[in-house]
């Protein structure tokens, strides 16, 4: 807790959980929100600059690293970077091959992007919770929440992307009629139960992206809150809890990235299957 004792724990926690929001305020017009209140008043027409910035930075890091490894990739003896990249590559490729039963060469790259991107975004959580808020405060920026996956907008955004792909491939593979038929006649293959089936299937379909997004967000957000709470302890006691929690989170970070990726692939696989 860098600011000392003059701030209350509640304020400290809230401050750390507030995104840097730029949007159209009813009174101030397009501006940065200076409080959680203002951010809320902006409604939908606002954007979290920190979430976007850090997530795009992590995405670019992924693209840059893997592109670099791909460029220098030789069939001979691989270097260290190439080794790591190839390990991740093969892990994702094998996972995709095991879970995806359709015939689509774009699914594996999609899974790779999801996995590494989410992994990088999650990994930002290992950085001490005070460093970046404090640094940006010195630079005159009020809020800075660096872990994009603790923002439901980010996880919902990615899940929404996956959802679009599910719809796209369902229609592409089965046709509009086939997709509608699948929604109408499963699980009960009887015309009288079409409304019930539709209700069930559409809910099931819509739940998919929400379950994806909320699982990742929930895990990351909860972990972040714990880190912030630990940071409220006296400075000499922080490491006692912080270190075990961080080590435990190395597992969570990878696991959540993996779960998001595999579930996306499973959903897309289901979208490719005929019933």
């Amino acid at each position, binding site marked *: 807790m860098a600011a000392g004792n003059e701030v209350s724990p509640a304020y400290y926690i809230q401050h750390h*959980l507030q*995104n840097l*929001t730029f*949007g159209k305020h009813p009174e101030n017009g397009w501006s940065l929100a200076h409080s959680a209140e203002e*951010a*809320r008043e*902006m*409604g*939908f*027409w*606002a*954007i*979290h600059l920190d*979430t*976007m910035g850090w*997530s*795009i930075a992590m*995405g670019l890091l*992924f*693209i840059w690293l*893997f*592109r670099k*490894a*791909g*460029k220098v*990739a*030789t*069939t*001979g003896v*691989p270097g260290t970077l190439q080794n790591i*990249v*190839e390990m991740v*590559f*093969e892990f994702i*490729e094998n996972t995709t091959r095991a879970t995806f039963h359709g015939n689509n060469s*774009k699914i*594996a*790259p*999609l899974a*790779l*992007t*999801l996995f590494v*991107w989410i992994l990088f975004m999650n990994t930002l959580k290992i950085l001490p919770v005070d460093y970046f808020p404090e640094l940006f405060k010195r630079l005159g920026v009020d809020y800075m929440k660096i872990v*994009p996956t603790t*923002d*439901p*907008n*980010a996880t*919902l*955004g*990615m899940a*929404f*992307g996956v959802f*679009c792909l599910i719809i796209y491939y369902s229609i592409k593979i089965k046709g509009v009629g086939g997709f509608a038929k699948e929604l109408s006649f499963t699980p009960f293959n009887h015309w009288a139960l079409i409304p019930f089936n539709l209700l069930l299937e559409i809910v099931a379909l819509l739940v998919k992206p929400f379950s994806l997004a909320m699982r990742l967000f929930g895990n990351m957000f909860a972990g972040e809150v714990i880190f912030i709470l630990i940071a409220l302890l006296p400075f000499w006691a922080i490491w006692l809890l912080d270190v075990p929690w961080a080590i435990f989170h190395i597992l969570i970070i990878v696991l959540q990235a993996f779960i998001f990726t595999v579930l996306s692939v499973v959903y897309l696989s289901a979208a490719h299957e005929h019933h």
Partner: protein
Amino acid sequence: MNINMTLIGQTIAFAIFVWFCIKYVWPPISTALYERQKKIADGLDAASRASRDLELAQEQASKTLQESKEQASQILEQANKRSAQIVEEAREQARAEGERLLVGARAEIDQEMQRAKEDLRAQVSHLAVIGAERILEGSVDEKAHRKLLDELAAEL
């Protein structure tokens, strides 16, 4: 924790990253990996082929060695036989030569003897003539004749 445009922004970013990955990240790594896999498989294949070749070559070598050994012993045997033959032939030749020489020598001896006999005969007749002259000139003394005849005989 407000839901706002960040959601859409994140979706767009996601779409762009996925597109970039499909287009520029996945293919080179995938190609390199499969090429390396193929290279390793080829290498292993070549190694096993080479070891099979080596085995074959070793077999061939031992076979050749065996053959050459047999050949060598055959040649040796032949040479032995030949040398024995040559020795035999030489011996035969020598004996024939010896015989020829012996025959020649004998013929010469015979010839010589014949000549000596001719000579002797001529001398005997001459001596006989001389003896008869002597007998006719001197008295017929048994003793003297005896002596003369002895001399004559000794001279023969």
